[in-house]
């Protein structure tokens, strides 16, 4: 199943400039390693990981929808929200968007496409508004998780997964390649943003690609499918839409593809064409981390009661929506306010500053996200074992602690992560300022964003100081 060959796609090579950036990593090409390169270029990759993942996904789906109705007894819930969800940002950091190469939804997309695919071009509105759609979906799913209890309710989790399945079935049935993954999937949007901060970078070799007229990486050959996420390594300057599937490496007749390691956040220092929707998404992710943390605090019920009294209704839809909106608005408005100050020093507009420096938040986003999920992974981790044993008919676990680690140690790790994220965001803001402004404007631009990072870092630390309740 590795050769899901796509029909040829017209590529106007005249439009493609050999624009490999100065930020290209110069580390050793991992594809030259006989083990890594051999594996990635073999017909077994990524199928050998993809198919078992699909089987596990099917098991999870059945367990969620047909298994125990209580989340704390459901193996599917534990695997999804205690194991997979906390691990996924760690994967993004070390392996970029690799998860998308083995994602079961993508596999279903490819399967449906192979047998029923119409391979129509991506609708223009998706190309134009894709990230905004992802932004909206991400916000909606987070909101609905809280008001309808997706995580706490196995059937709710099942509905979410089945909705995504239907999305990829529709996409695979009618549209080319992985349209859904690139333009609609909320996790794809998240992983795209995080992959920019990731440590893996796949690019074409500029000197080789400059003379290439085949574009086999983009079009596909009988060796492997075309790039499923519509990337063209010749002009790629970002890892946001590279899932390290290895297709380009298999297809390239000139052995141009390089896979290198890079320091985290390096790509963010030189974003050539920053996009407002991507910067907005990074602020939204920060807001989502705030929401997830706030609603787990033991101080949340009193806050909710206060809100109920303030607005005069006990409707959770209303009170949570207000709290949600406030949490979202905090990072967005703080970024906006900082951009307003920065524009006085660098002469660019508020929107230009917002767009450019929004990317600097990604590092802290990722750290906050990982720190939050660390709590689930380490404080509830044994629930995976207990529910797993129960799934196989072994009734142990009731009454036993689910913690893998002492709460104090977890908190220490959380502070460490947020500290690293803060430092990373601070440095990224500095590098963005340095790369885009003359020396006399550098500090005037950087200092307001440094203050912003301090404020956001402080909010993150403060939330991890407060006692938290478990959700599972």
């Amino acid at each position, binding site marked *: *199943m590795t050769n899901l060959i796509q029909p040829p796609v017209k590529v106007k090579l005249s439009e493609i400039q050999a624009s490999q950036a100065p930020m290209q990593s110069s580390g050793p090409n991992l594809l030259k390693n006989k083990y890594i390169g051999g594996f990635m270029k073999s017909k077994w990759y990524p199928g050998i990981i993809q198919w078992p993942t*699909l089987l596990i996904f*099917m098991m999870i*789906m*059945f367990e*969620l*929808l*047909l298994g*125990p*109705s*209580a*989340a*704390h*007894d459901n193996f599917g819930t534990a695997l999804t929200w205690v194991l997979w969800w906390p691990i996924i940002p760690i994967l993004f950091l070390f392996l970029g968007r690799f998860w998308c190469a083995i994602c079961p939804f993508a596999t279903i997309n490819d*399967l*449906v496409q*192979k*047998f*029923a*695919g*119409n391979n129509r071009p991506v609708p223009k509105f998706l190309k134009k508004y894709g990230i905004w759609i992802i932004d909206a979906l991400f916000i909606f799913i987070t909101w609905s998780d809280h*008001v309808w*209890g997706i995580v*706490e309710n*196995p*059937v709710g989790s*099942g*509905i979410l997964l*089945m*909705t995504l*399945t*239907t999305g990829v*079935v*529709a996409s695979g*049935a*009618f549209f080319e390649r992985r349209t859904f993954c690139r333009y609609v999937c909320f996790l794809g949007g998240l992983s795209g943003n995080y992959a920019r901060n990731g440590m893996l970078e796949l690019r074409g070799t500029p000197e080789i690609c400059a003379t290439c007229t085949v574009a086999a990486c983009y079009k596909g050959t009988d060796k492997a499918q075309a790039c499923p996420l519509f990337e063209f390594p010749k002009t790629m300057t970002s890892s946001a839409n590279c899932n390290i599937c290895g297709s380009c490496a298999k297809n390239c007749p000139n052995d141009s593809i390089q896979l290198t390691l890079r320091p985290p956040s390096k790509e963010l220092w030189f974003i050539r064409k920053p996009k407002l929707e991507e910067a907005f998404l990074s602020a939204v992710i920060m807001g989502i981390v705030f929401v997830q943390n706030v*609603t*787990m605090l*033991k101080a*949340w*019920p009193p806050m909710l009661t206060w809100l109920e009294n303030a607005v005069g209704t*006990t409707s*959770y839809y209303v009170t949570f929506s207000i709290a949600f909106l406030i949490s979202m608005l905090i990072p967005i408005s703080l970024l906006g306010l900082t951009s307003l100050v920065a524009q006085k020093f660098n002469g660019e507009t508020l929107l230009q500053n917002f767009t450019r420096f929004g990317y600097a938040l990604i590092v802290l986003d990722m750290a906050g996200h990982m720190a939050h999920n660390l709590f689930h992974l380490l*404080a*509830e981790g044994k*629930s995976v074992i*207990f529910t797993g044993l129960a799934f196989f008919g072994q*009734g142990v*676990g*009731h*009454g*036993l*602690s*689910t*913690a893998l680690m002492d*709460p104090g140690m977890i908190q220490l790790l959380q502070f460490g992560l947020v500290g690293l994220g803060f430092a990373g965001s601070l440095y990224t803001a500095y590098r963005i300022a340095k790369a885009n402004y003359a020396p006399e404007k550098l500090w005037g631009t950087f200092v307001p964003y440094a203050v912003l990072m301090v404020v956001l870092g402080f909010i993150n630390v403060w939330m991890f100081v407060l006692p938290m*309740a*478990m*959700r*599972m």
Partner: protein
Amino acid sequence: MKRFAHKVALLFTSILLLSLALPISALADGGTGGNEFTQTVNGYQVTLIFEKPASVGENQIHVVVKDGQSMPVSQADLEVSVVEAQAEHVEAQTTVETGTMSGMDAQPTAVAGTMSGMSAQPTTEVGTMSGMSAQPTAEIGTMTSTSEQPTGHDQMGMVALTAGHESGEYEGQVSIESDGDQILRVHLTVAGKLMEVDFPLHVAKSKTGAIVLSSFFAVDIVLIAAAVVMKRKSVSVDLSKKA
């Protein structure tokens, strides 16, 4: 060889899609035998009535309390909670730590002095006569601190029942979050004395999951079928043009 691989892949896809629909047949088990249960404690006859068979989710219940002379008791305070039978069994002797498997969002257990001879079925030992807010172990109705609690639920998942239409009748809504064996515990206070009555229940497995699965499966099949039809149409148009 390629055609064979194609057929194998097609077969696998069919099995994959079919397997999504199969478990529908492995659905709900029995459920409660009836909607009405009666227990006697200290001479009081307590009858629990479910308006509909107990199921996962919100359940409207009525509790009728009568004294030894079968006269309705109208001046009682009633609270109910739902306890997972298995968790109850395990937690009889120990205080629950934060983050245990049974009710991972940590409901602290209250284990204190006994109420001598107060309860016909003393499943958990309750606090002293004053401060009777017996903190139940592993409340099923309070899975998370984030979910909305219906009116009448307190912080610990206890639901206070209100007086019903008839004398000695009390009613309210109780949330059951798990299927399988459960215990509905009635905390009955008459003339300052607290009694607990346990009603073992077997809650039927919800059909919601199977309905969701089959609905999505049907939509997916329709989408694939539509795509196949449209694909064939486009091929036939091309052929006619060529001809």
